């Protein structure tokens, strides 16, 4: 998918003025935040589990090759295949090859962000293979030709009315006078439509929430059961995973599972947590005849050993998105690529480059709510700051901002000059504000620094004298 992160400000502007989107986003904060809170409170060990989960991931990342190789060996021992893909192009080609070798015409898909990352749907279509999204949210946005806007609720930006419009447009064979007022009728319609697709698919592609090295297993976590139908009915099952998904044992998996559903939807466990190991066994009566795991790097291995390594702890719960005021305001699409919200802001520059994505780490107040709710304790604000540092070092930061901070620092390091400058500044602003005590516009100041403020709010005026001047005055009785 072609990134539009460079036009984040325009994206955000459109999002802020999109009434329907704003209406849809209002549901996000109300539902997700409260549900998570309740689930976390119901588990006294939650914080200890966060630390344990963080440690498990950190240990794995410090020796990632060993664990991936162990996983590969076990997969092969059970009759499956592992494909290592350095980038999106390699992953696309690999998936296509598997599909072509299986003579596939139709592919069902469980939700997979890696699939989005490599743009597999468009690629398959270009090669005359039909991809069918089966997660309800993904199905809706596939019909709308949109990208997902959330890690776990891909159609969170779509209202019920829009779903109805979309279904009416897409499902032309059904009675146009049918009643679709109730959301349950929309669900029933999707279930009906997709049932036939499930049963006729040649290949099923899923993601993998985790890869377990102990048994050579890929794990998917869903509530709908679509992932299971996707990976059980067709002849071939392909699981897409990034290199950071591997955990050593089933017990390690359990720690992360205990964190995942609670952080994501506030459930104790998702309805379906499925462990898949190899193809069907000789005496099985159902299941795929072939099992492939595609492991994707796409820039992640380079994060190891850096101050951004902790991003690879992510278990894709979406809690950070659900609590982020930026995400609440503009939704996921504004970020311009696959991943939105705080994790998107921190990860996207690593995967598509800072030149393209430099706005994302900057469009944050570093409020820290994401880090507070992250089950893996990822220090997102720190990482965003590191991106800002790199941006400055590489000369990608806007000149005005660079100069502004430079001037500020110049004075801040020279107390005598600082005192003088602030005395003058305080006096000037006070005079401009006069009796009103505030300014609707700041004269003489460079617009780029002040317009952002005064376009939207008044600037309260300083009292007129600085604290240090008054303090000295009071202590020495001089002015």
């Amino acid at each position, binding site marked *: 998918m072609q990134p539009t992160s460079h036009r984040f400000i325009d994206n*955000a*502007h459109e999002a*802020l003025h999109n009434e329907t989107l704003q209406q849809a986003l209002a549901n996000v904060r109300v539902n997700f935040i409260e549900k998570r809170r309740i689930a976390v409170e119901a588990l006294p060990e939650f914080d200890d589990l966060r630390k344990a989960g963080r440690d498990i991931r950190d240990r794995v990342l410090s020796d990632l090759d060993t664990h991936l190789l162990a996983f590969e060996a076990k997969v092969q021992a059970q009759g499956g295949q592992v494909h290592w893909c350095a980038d999106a192009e390699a992953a696309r080609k690999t998936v296509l090859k598997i599909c072509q070798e299986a003579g596939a015409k139709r592919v069902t898909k469980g939700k997979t962000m890696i699939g989005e990352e490599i743009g597999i749907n468009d690629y398959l279509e270009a090669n005359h293979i039909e991809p069918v999204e089966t997660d309800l949210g993904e199905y809706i946005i596939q019909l709308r030709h949109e990208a997902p806007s959330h890690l776990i609720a891909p159609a969170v930006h779509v209202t019920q009315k829009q779903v109805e419009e979309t279904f009416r447009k897409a499902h032309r064979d059904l009675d146009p006078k049918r009643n679709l007022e109730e959301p349950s009728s929309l669900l029933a319609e999707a279930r009906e439509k997709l049932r036939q697709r499930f049963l006729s698919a040649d290949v099923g592609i899923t993601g993998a929430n985790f890869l377990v090295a102990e048994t050579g297993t890929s794990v998917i976590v869903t509530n709908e059961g679509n992932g299971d139908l996707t990976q059980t009915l067709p002849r071939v099952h392909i699981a897409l995973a990034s290199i950071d998904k591997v955990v050593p044992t089933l017990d390690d998996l359990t720690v992360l599972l205990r964190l995942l559903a609670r952080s994501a939807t506030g459930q104790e466990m998702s309805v379906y947590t499925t462990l898949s190991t190899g193809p069907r066994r000789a005496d099985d009566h159902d299941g795929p005849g072939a099992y492939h795991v595609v492991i994707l790097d796409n820039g992640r291995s380079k994060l190891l050993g850096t101050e951004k390594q902790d991003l690879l702890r992510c278990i894709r719960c979406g809690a950070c998105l659900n609590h982020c*005021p930026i995400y609440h*305001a*503009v939704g996921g699409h504004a970020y311009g690529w696959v991943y939105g919200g705080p994790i998107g802001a921190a990860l996207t520059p690593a995967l598509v480059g800072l030149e393209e994505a430099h706005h994302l780490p*900057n*469009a*944050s*107040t*570093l*409020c*820290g*709510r994401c*880090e*507070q709710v992250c089950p893996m304790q990822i220090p997102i604000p720190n990482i965003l*700051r*590191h*991106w*800002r*540092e790199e941006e*400055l070092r590489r000369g990608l*930061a806007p000149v005005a*901002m660079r100069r502004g*901070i*430079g001037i*500020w*620092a110049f004075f*801040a*390091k020279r*107390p005598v000059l*600082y005192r003088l400058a*602030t005395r003058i*500044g*305080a006096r000037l602003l006070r005079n401009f504000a*006069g*009796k*009103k*005590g*505030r300014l*609707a516009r700041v004269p003489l100041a460079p617009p*780029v*620094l*002040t*317009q*952002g*403020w005064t*376009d*939207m*709010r*008044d*600037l*309260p*005026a*300083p*009292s007129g004298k*600085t*604290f*240090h001047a008054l*303090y000295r005055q009071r202590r020495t009785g001089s002015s």
Partner: protein
Amino acid sequence: MTAQSNTVKRPRVALFVTCLVDLFRPTVGFASIKLLEDAGCDVEVPSVQTCCGQPAYNSGDSINAADIARQVIDAFEGYDYVVAPSGSCGGMISKHYPDLLAADKDYADRARKLAAKTFELTQFLVDVRKVDKVTARLDGSVTYHDSCSSLREMGVKAQPRKLLASVGGLTFKELPDGESCCGFGGTFCVKYPEISNRMVEEKTDNIVKTGAGLLLAGDLGCLLNMAGKLKRQGSAVQARHVAEVLAGMTDEPAIGEGER
């Protein structure tokens, strides 16, 4: 060694004024001094202080930020405690200085030591000095905004509420969605003004919903942002720093208000 004195030594507290208090609202500094002295501290204001370095730090300029941090450490490390009427500056010193100077042989340990004795104002009064009430009076209803750094970096939430509960005549109304950022974020508010505006609008909607006549907070950056928005909206809700109310120093016009 002489016999132990019967008088308890008053701790020497250095006030970290903060650049915003210095420039915009000195009353907050004086109110802080009063509260600290009432709590049995000897307060000094190191005169070389300018800024904690956070604007540079958050803009990715860790070189300048580190220079400023060293300056702050030099000026403040000789005191028993450092107190700031700001969770943002307090957080910068106590949570970020150690990281910032971790690779500096001379300052790494000094940064850690300073961090350990740096506090936000209400946190210091309640948690360290064990103050549980003030003598101030103010008739009216207030609501309180928890700034993000106070909340998440300094662990400040109960402390200001405890002290406000002791202010005679005051009714306290909890702010809905109180843990949401107000949209200030330093340079964020001028780099991404539309998003910042949306955030502060939601904040002022919630403030007005409480029915309170006065908004309080422990960080002047947040207060300038919220007060600026309230005034632009023509709201009658006023804004002050919590120190002003706790110290009973509310004669000066509220933030952004003109002369009476």
